[in-house]
C-alpha cells in the first residue's frame, strides 16, 4: 500500500510512508505502535529511490554542529589528556570562510589526546593553551561534542602571548612569536592562521571576512 500525499510539504506527526516501503532517513521517525513513518519536522519530502530512503528536509536548520562540520572554539582548559573547549559556532571554509551559524550561547566540546594529529609532544599545552581560538572538526554530534585536530587546517588560529598578552604571529609550522617581547611558544598551528581570509576579533569573538 502506498500513500498518495496531498502535498509534499509535511508537518510534524504527518504520515509520510509505511514502514515496509522505505527506510527512515533524516527528519523521519518510526511510530512503533502503528508502523507508520512520520515526519518529525515541518519540511519537504525527499525520496532516495536507490537506497529506498525517505527523509524530510527542514527549512530551519537547528543551530547545532553536525558530524564533520568545522567549528570555531576557544580553549577553556587543558588537562593531562583532554582539552576542553567552548564552541562558538559552525563555519564554512570554502570558497571563503564565513559563519554558517553562530550559537547564542557557547556549547562545550572536548578533544581527546588521540585526536590531536601530532605524535610527539611532551604536554598538551604544547598543542594549545587556554584562551586560544582554534579550528576543529566535529567527530560526534551529541553533546558534549567530541572534536578532532587532525588535518593541516585545524589548530590554533589566534593566540596571545602568555607573558605580555600581545597577539602572536606564527614563525614556522609549530611556533608562534610575540612581536612585543620576543617570547616564542609552541602550538599546533592551523595553516589558515596566516591566511588573510580569516580575521578574528577576540573581544567580539567574531570573525570578520575581509
Amino acid at each position, binding site marked *: 500500500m502506498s500513500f498518495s500525499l496531498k*502535498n509534499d*510539504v509535511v*508537518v*510534524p*506527526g*504527518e*504520515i509520510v510512508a509505511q514502514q515496509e516501503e522505505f527506510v527512515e532517513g533524516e*527528519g523521519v*521517525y518510526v*511510530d512503533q*505502535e502503528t508502523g507508520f513513518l*512520520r515526519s*518529525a*519536522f*515541518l*519540511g*519537504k519530502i525527499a525520496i532516495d529511490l536507490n537506497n529506498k530512503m525517505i527523509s524530510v528536509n*527542514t*527549512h*530551519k*536548520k*537547528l*543551530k*547545532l554542529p553536525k558530524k564533520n562540520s568545522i567549528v570555531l572554539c576557544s580553549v577553556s582548559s587543558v588537562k593531562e589528556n583532554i582539552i576542553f573547549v567552548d564552541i562558538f559556532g559552525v563555519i564554512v571554509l570554502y570558497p571563503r570562510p564565513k559563519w554558517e551559524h553562530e*550559537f*547564542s*550561547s*557557547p*556549547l*562545550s566540546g572536548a578533544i581527546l589526546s588521540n585526536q590531536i594529529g601530532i605524535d610527539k609532544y611532551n604536554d598538551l599545552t604544547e598543542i594549545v593553551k587556554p584562551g586560544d581560538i582554534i579550528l576543529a572538526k566535529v567527530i560526534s554530534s*551529541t*553533546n*558534549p561534542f567530541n572534536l578532532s585536530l587532525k588535518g593541516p587546517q585545524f589548530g590554533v588560529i589566534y593566540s596571545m602571548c602568555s607573558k605580555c598578552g600581545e597577539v602572536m604571529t606564527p614563525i614556522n609550522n609549530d611556533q608562534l612569536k610575540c612581536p612585543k617581547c620576543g617570547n616564542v611558544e609552541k602550538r599546533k598551528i592551523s595553516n589558515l592562521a596566516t591566511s588573510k581570509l580569516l580575521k578574528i576579533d577576540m573581544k567580539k569573538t567574531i570573525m570578520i571576512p575581509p
Partner: protein
Amino acid sequence: MARPQRFIDDEGKRLDGRKPDEIRPVKMQVGVLSNADGSALVEYGLTKVLAAVYGPKESQKSISLPDRASLRVRYHMAPFSTEERKNPAPSRREVELSKVLRESLEPIVITDYFPRTSIDIFIEVLQSDGGTRTVGATAASLALADAGIPMKALVAGVAIGKVDNVLIVDLNEVEDMYGDADMPIVAAPDLGQITLYQLNGVLSKEEFHNAIDMAMKVINKLVDIEKETLRNSYKEAGEE
C-alpha cells in the same frame, strides 16, 4: 463580572451567541518574533497567547539530563492581560501551570536527539478570557514546530465545561468562573494521545465520555488549522 441568570437561552445559544459545540474564532500565526528560534501567536476569541521557543542550547549542569534534552516551560500572564492589573511575579497557579504544560509537551518533543541540552519555551498570556492553558499548549506546539525542533506530532488544547447541565466547548471567562465543570484537554490526534487532562467540578460518567468525544473532535479541527498555518509559513519562507 456578575453571575449570569442563565448560561444558555431558549434558542440554545450561549452568552456570546455560540452554540454549545461551537468554538470561538481561532487565529494562528507563526514566526512573529525574530529573536526567538520559533514563535507563534494564537487567539481563541479574546484569549491571546504568545509562545516563543529558544534552543536547544547547552543546559545548566543542575538540570541537564544525560540521555535527552530537558524542557523548560514558563507560563506567565502579562500584568495587562486581566481586567485588574495582575502582579507580574509568578503566582502559585502559574508555577503549577508551567509544570503541567511542560508535562503536556514532553511526550511530543523528540528529546533524545539532543542529550544534555535544554529547550526553553515561553508562554506569555497577552489577553485572558478563559482557557489560557489550552491556548498556551496550542501556541507552544506551533512555536516548537516553527523552531524546527523534532516532534512526534502536533498538539492542540481545548476546554470542555458544563453549564446549566449542558456540555459546552471552549469556555470563556464567565463560563469558566461560574460553570459547574471545567475540563481542559490537550491531545495529539495523530498519535491518539491525551497529554494534558484536568477536571474542575463534577461530571457524570456519561458526560465524561461525551466530553472527551467533543474535545477530540474540536482538537482535530484545531490541529488541521495548525497544519495549514505551518504549511503557509513554509511556502512564504520558500518564496523569499
